[in-house]
C-alpha cells in the first residue's frame, strides 16, 4: 500500500510511538521513571504546542470521563449494516464486470485436480443407489410464522440478499425461515446478531430473545453466525446436539445426524450432545460430531473455505466428490443418482462461482475424473 503523502504516515507513526510511551508510563508501577527512557514524550512536550492540551485532558477527571464517553458514543453495528446495504447495491453491477473479465481465463475458472486415480474396470449400470437433496416445494425463501402462516419473501437469488429484522411482538414465539436451493439469506436477529443461511436450509428463531438464553434451532442445511456479545449464552440446537457461544463467529453445517460440522472463526465455542459432555474448540478448529455414535473429531482447518459460500463460491479443498456434489445439488437445485461403482471419495480441488453454468462444472469434473454426468429428466442427473 502506498500513501499519497508519505509525511502523513511519518507523523502517524510518531503519534503511535508517543501513545506507546504514554501508556507505558501509565502502566508502570514505580513512581521513579527515567525520563530519558521516553525520548518521544520529551520531544513532544518541548516541540509540540498541542501536548499541553492532551496532558490536561488526561489528567482532568471530568475531561477524561467526557473523552471516554465520546469514544463510546456511536453505533458501530448500525453503521456496518448500512455499509452492507450500500455494497449490496453495487455488487450486482460488479459481478457482471468480474465475470466478463474472467472469461478470458475461462480454463482457469474451474480448477479441478485429482490426487487419486480412480480405477473403474467395468461400468455396470445399476440404477439409483443413492440420492440426496430433499424434496422441495418451496421455491423462494419463506418465513413460517409462529401462527402457521407462510410468508413468501421476495424471491432472492445468490446475488441478492434480503434482510428481515424481527421485531419484538410476542416473546418466546418462534418463526421458521426456510431457504430453498439456489438461494441464500441474511437474517438479522433481534439482538443484532446476523445469520447467513445457505441454500436448502431451515432455521427456527425466536421473534425476540426474552429469557436468560438465546435459543435457535437449525433443522437442516448450513448457517454462518455472527453473534453479538451478550451475557445470555447463544445456543444453536441441531438434532440432539447443541452449540453454545457467547459472542463469536462460527459456521454450522448439518449433513445429517451422523455428521454435524462446526467451524469456529473467533472467540470460544462448546458443542454438547444431549446437554452433556461439552467439548470446547478454539478458533480455526473444526469439530465433526456424529450425534448417533457420539463420536467427536477435532481438527485444525483452513477456515477460509468455510466462508466462501457466504459470497456465493463453492470451494473444495481435497474434499470428497460426494461433498462437492452435495453443494452443487443445493446451489443448482439438481439431484444426483450415483452409480455405486463411482468412488465418491475422490478428493477434488475446486473453486468456482455459483453463477457458472452447470454444464461447465460437469465438463470440468468429467475432464479430470472418469465420472460422467447424464441428464435423466427434470433436474436429475445420473453419475457414473
Amino acid at each position: 500500500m502506498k500513501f499519497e503523502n508519505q509525511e502523513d504516515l511519518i507523523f502517524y507513526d510518531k503519534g503511535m510511538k508517543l501513545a506507546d510511551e504514554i501508556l507505558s508510563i501509565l502502566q508502570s508501577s514505580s513512581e521513579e521513571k527515567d525520563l530519558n527512557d521516553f525520548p518521544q514524550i520529551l520531544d513532544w512536550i518541548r516541540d509540540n504546542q498541542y501536548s499541553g492540551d492532551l496532558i490536561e485532558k488526561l489528567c482532568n477527571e471530568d475531561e477524561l470521563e467526557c473523552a471516554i464517553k465520546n469514544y463510546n458514543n456511536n453505533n458501530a453495528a448500525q453503521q456496518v449494516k448500512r455499509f452492507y446495504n450500500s455494497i449490496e447495491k453495487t455488487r450486482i453491477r460488479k459481478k457482471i464486470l468480474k465475470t466478463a473479465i474472467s472469461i478470458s481465463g475461462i480454463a482457469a475458472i474451474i480448477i479441478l485436480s485429482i490426487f487419486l486415480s480412480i480405477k473403474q474396470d467395468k461400468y455396470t449400470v445399476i440404477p439409483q443407489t443413492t440420492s440426496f437433496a430433499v424434496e422441495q416445494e418451496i421455491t423462494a425463501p419463506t418465513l413460517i410464522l409462529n401462527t402457521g402462516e407462510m410468508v413468501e419473501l421476495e424471491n432472492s437469488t445468490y446475488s441478492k440478499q434480503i434482510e428481515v429484522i424481527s421485531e419484538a411482538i410476542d416473546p418466546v414465539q418462534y418463526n421458521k425461515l426456510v431457504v430453498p436451493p439456489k438461494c441464500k439469506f441474511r437474517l438479522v436477529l433481534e439482538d443484532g446478531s446476523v445469520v447467513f443461511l445457505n441454500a436448502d436450509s431451515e432455521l427456527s428463531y425466536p421473534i425476540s430473545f426474552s429469557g436468560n438464553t438465546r435459543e435457535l434451532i437449525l433443522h437442516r442445511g448450513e448457517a454462518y453466525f455472527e453473534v453479538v456479545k451478550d451475557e445470555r449464552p447463544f445456543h444453536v440446537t441441531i438434532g440432539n446436539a447443541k452449540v453454545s457461544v457467547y459472542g463469536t463467529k462460527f459456521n454450522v453445517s448439518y449433513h445429517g445426524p451422523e455428521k454435524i460440522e462446526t467451524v469456529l472463526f473467533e472467540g470460544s465455542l462448546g458443542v454438547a450432545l444431549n446437554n452433556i459432555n461439552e467439548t470446547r474448540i478454539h478458533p480455526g478448529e473444526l469439530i465433526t460430531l456424529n450425534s448417533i455414535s457420539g463420536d467427536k473429531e477435532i481438527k485444525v482447518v483452513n477456515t477460509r473455505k468455510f466462508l466462501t459460500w457466504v459470497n456465493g463460491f463453492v470451494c473444495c479443498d481435497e474434499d470428497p466428490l460426494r461433498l462437492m456434489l452435495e453443494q452443487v445439488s443445493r446451489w443448482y437445485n439438481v439431484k444426483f443418482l450415483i452409480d455405486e461403482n463411482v468412488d465418491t471419495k475422490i478428493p477434488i480441488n475446486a473453486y468456482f462461482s455459483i453463477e457458472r453454468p452447470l454444464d461447465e462444472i460437469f465438463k470440468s469434473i468429467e475432464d479430470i475424473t472418469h465420472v460422467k454426468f447424464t441428464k435423466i429428466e427434470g433436474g436429475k442427473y445420473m453419475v457414473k
Partner: protein
Amino acid sequence: MSSGIEKEELLLGYFNDRDSVAFGYFYQKLYKDLYYYAAKLYIDTEVLPEDAIHDIFMTLWNSSNVKFDNLYKLKAYLIISIKNRYRNYLDHQKSKNRYVKFCKENQQKFETDIAEIEVISSINNAIGLLPKECAKIFRLHLDGWEVKDIANKFGKAQSTVYAQKQKAINILKQKLKSIDIKLLMLFFLG
C-alpha cells in the same frame, strides 16, 4: 492452532479480496477509533462523522487495487483518509481561515490526535477489565443514565448501584491515579 494475529491476517486477506464479511469485521473493529477522530475534526460542521467514515469505506471497497499487509497500515490509511477528506472539505468551504489554520497546524496536531485516540482507546479497554457488574453499571453511567434508572433496569436497590458505580470509579482511579502524577510531573519537568 491459529492465534489471534494469524486470524486477523487471514481476514485481512479476505479484506484485500473485497470480501464483505471481512470488511464488516474491520469496519466494526476500527469504528470507535475512527469515529472519535472524525468527530473531533468535524465538530462545528454540518458533516456527520459516521457519513465521513462510511464514504471512506465505500471508496476503499471500490478501489480494489488498494491492499494492506497488516492491520496497522490499514488503520493508518483510514485515519489519514479521514484527515485528507476533512482538508478537502475545508478547501471547498468558503471559509478560507479554517483551511489555512488547519494546514498550518496540520502535522503537530495530527501527531497529538493520534496519540490521544490510542490512549483513550486503551483506557476504555481498561473499563472492560473491571468486574463485569461494575463495568456494566459504569458504562451506563457514562451513557448518562441516572442511578435510579440503572437500578430499575437491573432490578437492584439504588444503594447497590451506587456502590457498584463507586467501586468502578475507585478501581479506575487507582489505575489512573498514577497517570495524574506522572504526566503532570513530566509536563513540568519538560
